[in-house]
């Protein structure tokens, strides 16, 4: 390069202009996600913004270290590309948890390196120190919390809540106070790396302690929250490093994660602190145990052939998918069944509860993978009035989101949670492995209603059987 070009590229103002272009592309790209038609382009536009930000930074700070930077980027690509290419759609929640985790990990490592480079924040403006310490604590919480969430979703750890019971909140409070006290000591000018490391360790334990008590069905809330944490810690890193692209990108992610966390909590009618404090565990399990057998009704079991006939003569069938469909990888079988029914002139709708599955929008992605037209997927508020018009509501691997106890039984741990009104359908068919209660350990009185029929079996093989029987009708 000519000297003129070099001086131009390394001009800080030029770099800032490129950062502005980058974050403008992020915002423009993200606004493309408002519709499935423009979303692919939006995502690619955001990726172009990212490429500009990375290349601009590389060109402006070229002091040696090329080899180290190359090692990092090559390693990251070698891990990231195959992971993104090969992950199954049913495993997306784990994938997102893992990506949240590495982001948080990068944030706290960068803060730590900054601390060491400046010999314990020597001659560093107080505000930079504060933002850097915030990033270190939140990044560490996010890293460890996300890893635990990954472990639970991947079933490396038990999905059930692991909790200290009543003392959990007290312990969490103590850990947070300890981490903040150490951060204050470092900010006050202790220059002590021991204190910094101890602060990271307390934040790490807090990350574990926050997510271990969370049960499977509360996962959508936690994943969204960790997403927000990583975003906010990235924004704080941006302030500490005086980098506008980092600030804007971090805040977009922070806003997105916060919005989703709130949506999920509202959809469960539970406050975010209540979920963090220990999910349905403890009380939920006890209530479930004592409530077992409280419904004296009988369970009607049906065969796939019966269900096939019912579906064949229906006008409107509403499919209610849940986590069980994801576990059984049944989305393609469900789409096949729907196609066969549509060929007979049956109208098909899918009722998607906001917290069905393990992350926001989990069911939508699975059904999109199986080529289900997205305009057949209906949100809870839109589909609920339709159930009374439906001939059959076909519940596939969903449980708590259909439990009428949420409306009728004030003693139920899920009382007040908005549910899908499947019981209003003329006939309800529930595909379920066994009569075991769902995650929350609560008996579902839906199964004992006179208009409910149970088809026991694995979701995938049961749905395939129904499709087979349909051909005979």
């Amino acid at each position, binding site marked *: 390069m000519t000297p003129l070009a070099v001086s131009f590229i390394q001009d800080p103002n030029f770099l800032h202009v490129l950062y502005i272009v980058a974050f403008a592309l992020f915002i423009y790209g993200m*606004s493309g996600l408002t519709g499935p038609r423009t979303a692919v382009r939006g995502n690619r536009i955001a990726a172009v913004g990212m490429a500009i930000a990375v290349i601009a930074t590389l060109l402006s700070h070229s002091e040696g270290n090329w080899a180290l930077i190359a090692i990092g980027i090559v390693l990251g690509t070698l891990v990231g*590309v195959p992971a993104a290419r090969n992950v199954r759609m049913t495993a997306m929640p784990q994938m997102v948890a893992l990506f949240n985790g590495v982001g948080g990990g*990068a944030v706290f490592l960068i803060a730590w390196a900054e601390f060491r*480079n400046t010999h314990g924040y020597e001659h560093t403006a107080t505000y930079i120190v504060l933002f850097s310490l915030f990033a270190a604590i939140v990044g560490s919480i996010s890293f460890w919390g996300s890893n635990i969430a990954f472990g639970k979703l991947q079933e490396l750890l038990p999905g059930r809540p692991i909790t200290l019971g009543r003392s959990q909140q007290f312990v969490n409070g103590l850990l947070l106070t300890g981490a903040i006290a150490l951060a204050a000591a470092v900010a006050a000018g202790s220059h002590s790396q021991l204190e910094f490391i101890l602060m990271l360790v307390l934040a790490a334990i807090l990350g574990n302690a926050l997510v271990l008590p969370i049960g499977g069905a509360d996962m959508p809330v936690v994943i969204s929250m960790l997403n927000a944490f990583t975003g906010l810690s990235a924004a704080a890193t941006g302030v500490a490093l005086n*980098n506008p692209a980092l600030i804007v990108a971090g805040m977009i992610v922070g806003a997105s994660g916060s919005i989703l966390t709130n949506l999920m909590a509202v959809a469960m009618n539970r406050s975010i602190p209540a979920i963090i404090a220990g999910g349905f565990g403890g009380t939920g399990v006890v209530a479930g145990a004592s409530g077992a057998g409280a419904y004296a009704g009988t369970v009607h079991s049906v065969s796939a052939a019966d269900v096939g006939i019912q579906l064949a003569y229906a006008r409107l069938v509403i499919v209610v998918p849940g986590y069980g469909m994801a576990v059984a990888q049944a989305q393609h079988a469900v789409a096949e069944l729907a196609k066969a029914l549509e060929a007979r002139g049956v109208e098909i709708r899918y009722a998607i509860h906001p917290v069905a599955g393990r992350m926001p*929008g989990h069911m939508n992605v699975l059904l*999109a993978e199986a080529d289900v037209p997205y305009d057949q997927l209906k949100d809870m508020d839109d589909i609920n009035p339709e159930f009374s018009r439906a001939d059959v509501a076909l519940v596939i691997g969903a449980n708590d989101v259909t439990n009428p106890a949420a409306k009728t039984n004030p003693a139920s741990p899920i009382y007040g949670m908005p549910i899908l009104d499947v019981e209003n359908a003329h006939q309800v068919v529930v595909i379920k492995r066994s009569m075991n209660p769902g995650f929350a350990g609560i008996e579902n009185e839906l199964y004992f209603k006179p208009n409910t029929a149970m088809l026991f079996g694995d979701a995938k093989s049961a749905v395939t059987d129904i499709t087979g029987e349909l051909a005979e009708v």
Partner: protein
Amino acid sequence: MLITNLTILVLAGFVGYAVISKIPNTLHTPLMSGTNAIHGIVLLGGLLVIAFSGNSTFNKVILVIAITFGTINIVGGFLVTDRMLEMFKRKPTRPKDGEGE
């Protein structure tokens, strides 16, 4: 410097809120993986700090790890989001429903 950065921070928060709240439930999973990719921008932090890391081997090691993490985020996040969104785009409607191709 602080005031400028805080201004950017607050405004970006509001812009983020305005943009993200328009995104429909259907696309919430791609939204999460897309934002995962975007927070991979911490990679820039790693690139900036490594320039000042002096001779400390330990600093270099943790920063290479940070750069690796950031790259996983960016590359993996954008790719997996693209894969998902292609599935949404693929078949907007069946012919019977009229709308779409």
